[in-house]
């Protein structure tokens, strides 16, 4: 039958079960929107107020649902506004399909109105992208786009379509199965049994092993396997930032997060381990600290779906390129029931001596305490979305994640402004869950225009602004490493309550601990979006901390200023 390019694209979305997309129209993609007019019963289009929000929302949707997130933007400024969100999805391996409009074919390369070399701009920050020069290619390209985005090491892809290609009518029957000679993600899925045996042997020879669980546990849905493996082998589990919520934090083998703001005892455990079993993580510099001094005593077993990650940053003893789920299963079968209780006890003792997550008793509204109250008021059942900086770290540290895949954050790119639009995407993916966007006063102001979106669609998310009137992490670094020469760290903020009200939303402010408890309870009861201006202490720092360029062994718990303040 005859179909236009735009119709083929929308048929593809429907075929892939996409029911919510986030986008912003413009001249070059108007034909796509015109076609969307007739698909409104099947595809819900959420009009964001800036394309960056569309990319973030699609990212959040993808992470929370396990499906592909879809965002739409027009040519030129539409595409360039998507860039930050797509770069973030690329860094964090999030499956997103970005549909972008392009100037008509006859204007390509002429510096036409709203023309950008969109595939050129996106090339280094997508897993793959296409400029589709005729509608006949669209069935193949769309099929490949979803396939590439959501297989192997996942990632964002872009389909750039000139305006007249959306309108071009071609004969269309069906979507062909993907046939890409250079891309065979399935071949790496099952682990090599020889390597699994080798890994088991190394595990049997270890006295002080640590499991480092990363983002891959979520993508591979390997939660049961991780739990069973840790229990059978009796090995402590420490997570990366993206590994948070992959292993129940109330479990006796859980020791929280590693890295720049990891728990002291977790960092020490990694530093002194004789074996790291690294599952779906990539030894990011925020995880390892100074690389030369990272886990110098440890042998390393590294399992990852991406062969290029094996040996990229650290030298591996056993590298397994495979899907985590079957690999951990195979490991469970291969290992004996083990007992590492002396090692576990040792880490517990460090934890008793250096309880990194203890919160000081004080009347000051400490941000850590606020996060803990959100945990209590939601019975630990909230899904937490953060962007980057102090609020991100406190949310990772002080909310205890027992439920799977309930923490989402801009980890690799560290994009401010992620937490709010991403939370919108998360809510669309998980409408029945309590979604809390925990965000700094700086980050919130990067993408707050989407308040209009949550109002329009009554998207029930709670936006908890951890408001210290500062770019807190900037202030922290200027304090510690730039002799307290504060520049561009203090924020002259708007009245966030009035701002919420201007958008027709409920805004609640708290400036004391009592008020914090009151407004959190109130917000939790309101069946709709709420903006919470939680005014917290201005100078509180995130600890523990591995100063930039230091090793995990050099993790510091606090500083003299801090000590003096509470003395």
């Amino acid at each position, binding site marked *: 039958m005859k179909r236009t390019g735009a119709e083929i694209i929308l048929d593809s979305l429907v075929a892939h079960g996409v029911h919510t997309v986030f986008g912003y129209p413009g001249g070059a993609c108007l034909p796509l929107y015109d076609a969307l007019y007739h698909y409104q019963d099947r595809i819900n289009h959420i009009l964001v107020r800036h394309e960056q929000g569309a990319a973030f929302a699609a990212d959040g949707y993808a992470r929370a649902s396990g499906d592909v997130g879809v965002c739409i933007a027009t040519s030129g400024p539409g595409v360039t506004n998507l860039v930050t969100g797509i770069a973030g999805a690329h860094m964090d391996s999030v499956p997103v399909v970005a549909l972008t409009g392009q100037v008509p074919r006859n204007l390509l390369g002429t510096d036409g109105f709203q023309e950008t070399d969109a*595939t*050129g701009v996106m*090339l*280094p920050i997508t*897993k*793959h992208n296409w*400029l589709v*020069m*005729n509608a006949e*290619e669209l069935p193949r390209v769309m099929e490949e786009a979803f396939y*590439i985005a959501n297989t192997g*090491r996942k990632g964002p892809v872009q389909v750039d379509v000139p305006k007249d290609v959306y309108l071009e009518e071609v004969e269309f029957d069906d979507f062909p199965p993907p*046939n*890409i*000679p*250079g*891309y*065979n993600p399935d071949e790496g899925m099952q682990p090599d049994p020889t390597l699994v045996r080798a890994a088991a042997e190394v595990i049997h020879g270890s006295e002080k092993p640590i499991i480092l669980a990363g983002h891959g546990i979520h993508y591979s849905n390997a939660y049961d396997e991780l739990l069973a493996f840790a229990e059978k082998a009796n090995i402590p589990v420490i997570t990366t930032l993206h590994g948070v919520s992959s292993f129940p934090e109330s479990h006796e083998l859980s020791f929280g997060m590693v890295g720049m703001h990891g728990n002291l005892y977790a960092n020490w455990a990694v530093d002194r381990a004789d074996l790291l079993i690294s599952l779906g993580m990539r030894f990011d510099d925020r995880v390892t600290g100074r690389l030369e001094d990272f886990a110098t005593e440890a042998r390393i077993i590294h399992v990852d779906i*991406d*062969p*290029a990650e094996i*040996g*990229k940053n650290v030298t591996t003893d056993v590298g397994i390129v495979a899907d985590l789920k079957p690999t951990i299963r195979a490991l469970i079968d291969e290992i004996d029931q083990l007992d590492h209780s002396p090692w576990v006890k040792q880490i517990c003792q460090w934890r008793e001596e250096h309880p990194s997550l203890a919160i000081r008793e004080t009347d000051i509204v400490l941000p850590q305490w606020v996060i803990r109250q959100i945990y209590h008021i939601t019975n630990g059942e909230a899904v937490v979305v953060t962007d980057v900086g102090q609020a991100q770290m406190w949310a990772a540290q002080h909310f205890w994640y027992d439920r799977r895949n309930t923490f989402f954050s801009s980890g690799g790119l560290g994009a401010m402004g992620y937490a709010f639009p991403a939370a919108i995407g998360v809510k669309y993916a998980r409408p029945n869950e309590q979604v809390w966007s925990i965000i700094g006063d700086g980050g919130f102001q990067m993408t707050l225009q989407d308040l209009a979106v949550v109002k329009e669609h009554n998207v029930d998310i709670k936006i908890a602004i951890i408001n210290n009137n500062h770019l807190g992490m900037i202030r922290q670094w200027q304090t510690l490493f730039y002799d307290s020469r504060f520049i561009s760290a203090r924020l002259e903020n708007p009245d966030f309550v009035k701002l919420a009200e201007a958008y027709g939303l409920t805004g609640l402010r708290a400036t004391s601990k009592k008020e914090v408890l009151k407004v959190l309870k109130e917000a939790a009861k309101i069946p709709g979006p709420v903006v919470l201006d939680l005014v917290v202490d201005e100078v509180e720092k995130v600890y523990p901390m591995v100063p930039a360029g230091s090793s995990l062994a050099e993790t510091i718990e606090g500083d003299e200023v801090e000590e003096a303040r509470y003395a």
Partner: protein
Amino acid sequence: MRHVIIADVEDHPGVLNRIASLFRKRAYNIESLAVGHSHRPGISRMTIVVAEDHKEAIQVTKQLDKLIEVVSVTDVTEQRHVSREMALAKIAAPEMKRTEILQLANVYRAQVVDVSPGSIILEITGDEDKIDSFVEIIRPYGILELSRTGEVAMVRGRAMPTPTMVAEEGPAA
């Protein structure tokens, strides 16, 4: 050290851009890159020479392999292989020097491909060493222009393993 990498890639517009972008992004040192059609329709073969140590060369190979349009990648440095480069050199050749230059060309089995008043163009093929050495020998006569293709390489003996899937379609528009 030098690593010689052979990559078979889909013959699509933009492939070269992706590879160049990868090298730029990860700051790999590229010495030469030669590309042309391979024996398979729709597949081009690239020979890439990088100046990187062994660990980096492994990363280069893996990162190249991750590109969707790269069908296969092999680092042939440690394998028995032949490599050839071609160069065209335009040399200042006043009549009195011409015989001398031609004699040198003969030693290197370089071909004369153009003779003009005052200059000649020589074509030489060989491995990198041979061409380097020829260029140095001929330099005192005055090289007016030099154009080198970069190395192309091939493993000796058996055919390189090829993926089972082959592009059904020809090059895209």
